[in-house]
């Protein structure tokens, strides 16, 4: 069991290293850097000044050296300084991680409280009209562009009904969170509904359910004690994957709602070629994904005896 976890951890470290290197290379090998984008913006920039800025930012150092220094920095918890603002990247990320995390949690909560029951009802009424309706709903949820759905919500709930603020973070209150969370949650909700339906249908026909039924228990007890837990085993992975990719998957939604999270920072700094910040954002996104999925692995270890006693 500890061995499995260790292997996972090793994999995670390798994944992080590869991603960082990859992003680093993408931004270094291909021409066009921070200074040239600065020059494109301010045509009056003196080449000598540009040269000085480049030197200050160590842009002229060889790529492997910069990569090496960066990686060493990470180990010390130092993600470098932003080219644009000269602020430490860790500082810039701090509050934004919290904002993105809050949004991801809220969105996942929306997805779970609607997706699971929807999938369960569909499975319970397999091939009836309600099943069909639920699945049409689910495939629509998977096909709707999140940013457009967000626009519609904004139009209805903010502009027409005036119930909720259009965008922004406000004081961090719940009213600003609702619309972005609903928007971000729609695709995972749809996916969860489908996964839940499949999981329940698969579990429902399992032999042990027939055994349980032969014991003469009520449907309620059957579902609670035998069906739900086993079906949930099949859904948990999907929940982890969805939740884990929300830190980065929310870029478009964050930008639509002007949500001060990691995603909108990423977009800003990508435009500026502010590489240290881009790197920092992607690092957070990858780490979040890996941490969430490791936690899911741990959860399986805790609740699935088949893995626990391997």
């Amino acid at each position, binding site marked *: 069991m500890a061995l499995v976890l260790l292997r996972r951890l090793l994999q995670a470290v390798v994944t992080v290293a590869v991603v960082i290197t990859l992003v680093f290379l993408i931004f270094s090998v291909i021409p066009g850097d921070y200074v040239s984008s600065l020059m494109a913006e301010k045509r009056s920039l003196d080449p000598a000044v540009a040269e000085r800025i480049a030197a200050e930012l160590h842009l002229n150092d060889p790529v492997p050296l910069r990569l090496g220094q960066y990686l060493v920095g990470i180990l010390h918890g130092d993600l470098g300084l932003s080219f644009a603002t000269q602020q430490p990247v860790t500082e810039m990320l701090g509050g934004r991680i919290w904002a993105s995390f809050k949004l991801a949690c809220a969105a996942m909560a929306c997805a779970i409280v609607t997706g699971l029951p929807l999938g369960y009802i569909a499975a319970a009424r397999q091939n009836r009209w309600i099943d069909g309706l639920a699945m049409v709903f689910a495939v629509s949820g998977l096909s709707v562009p999140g940013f457009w759905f967000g626009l519609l919500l904004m139009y209805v709930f903010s502009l027409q009904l005036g119930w909720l603020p259009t965008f922004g973070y406000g004081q961090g209150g719940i009213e600003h969170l609702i619309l972005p969370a609903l928007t971000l949650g729609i695709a995972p909700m749809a996916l969860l509904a489908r996964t839940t339906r499949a999981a329940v249908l698969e579990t429902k026909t399992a032999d*042990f359910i*027939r*055994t349980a039924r032969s014991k*003469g*228990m*009520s449907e309620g007890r059957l579902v609670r*004690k035998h069906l739900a837990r*086993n079906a949930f085993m099949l859904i948990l992975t999907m929940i982890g994957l969805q939740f884990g990719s929300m830190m980065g998957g929310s870029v478009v939604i964050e930008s639509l709602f002007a949500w001060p999270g990691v995603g909108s920072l990423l977009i800003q700094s990508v435009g500026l070629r502010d590489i240290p910040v881009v790197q920092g954002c992607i690092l957070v996104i990858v780490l979040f994904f890996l941490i969430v999925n490791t936690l899911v692995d741990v959860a399986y270890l805790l609740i699935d005896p088949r893995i626990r*006693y391997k």
Partner: protein
Amino acid sequence: MSDDVLRIEDLTIALRVEGRDHPAVEGVNLTIGRGEVVGLVGESGCGKSLTALSVAGLLTAPMHVSNGRILIEGQDVARLSNRSLRSLRGDRIAMIFQEPMTALNPLMTIGDQIGEMFVLHRGLGARAARKAAIAALDRVQVPGAARRVDDYPHQLSGGMRQRVMIAIALACDPALLIADEPTTALDVTIQAEIIDLILELCREQGTAVLMISHDLGLVARICNRVAVMYAGHLIEEQAAERIFLSPHHPYTRGLVGALPRLGRRLTEGQAALTEIPGTVPAILDYGAGCRFAPRCTRVMAHCAAATPETTQLPQGGRIRCFLHD
């Protein structure tokens, strides 16, 4: 109250396809007395499991009972409320399945799964149920029951799991145990052990057994009576010792003829049932006429035209064949 534990009257189980019923089991009559051991044999796909499941009330769509009655200890199950049906299930009638590897809930300890029976039918609390579960495990001769009670199914071998299934089934001293090929999936070396365990425990507590098997030799050895099914019909039923001496239906004769030596239990019995040339028709192809006709060595002109009725044999037992009209 009648002394029959189980009475199946004119049972028809149909497969519903696109709103139409296709009988998979048709016109089956079978009675099991208190403490009796009855065997049910037949080739794969002839409807043995369906019959068993219908008795236990475990048929799932698209299969359903479309005709006939099932009486358990004199009570017509179709007339019982859901609640009384549930209290019948597990308590008065229990079932063991073919596949011990998947029949147990992988996320629950075997102690909880056995104990659940006492919680459901004896109203025991968690502690008492656990104690009772240990005793039940002891009874099915699981070594170190007190330790193993907290094991999960995947920690047990197939034979041990089947013992757990037996413990669950017999936990509440049911009147009838349906064992649907309880040893087919097990190692040959422990098959006899498991069968003997089932029989011994049932004899002790006076539980009647419906033993479903492919193995005519086994069934003849351990049962009082044997019923033979073919393609959804019950085609012959006789006392176990007679069915070897004088099988009447051409299908049964084929089965007995395929056995190497009279009365000997054979481990390769499963192969024996298929040694009659030809295959069983599929449900949707069940037509008029005797369903065995295409394979029957004694087929007559009118055999394919109408289905033979079930008639009594003079020496006791029943048969469904035009040779015995």
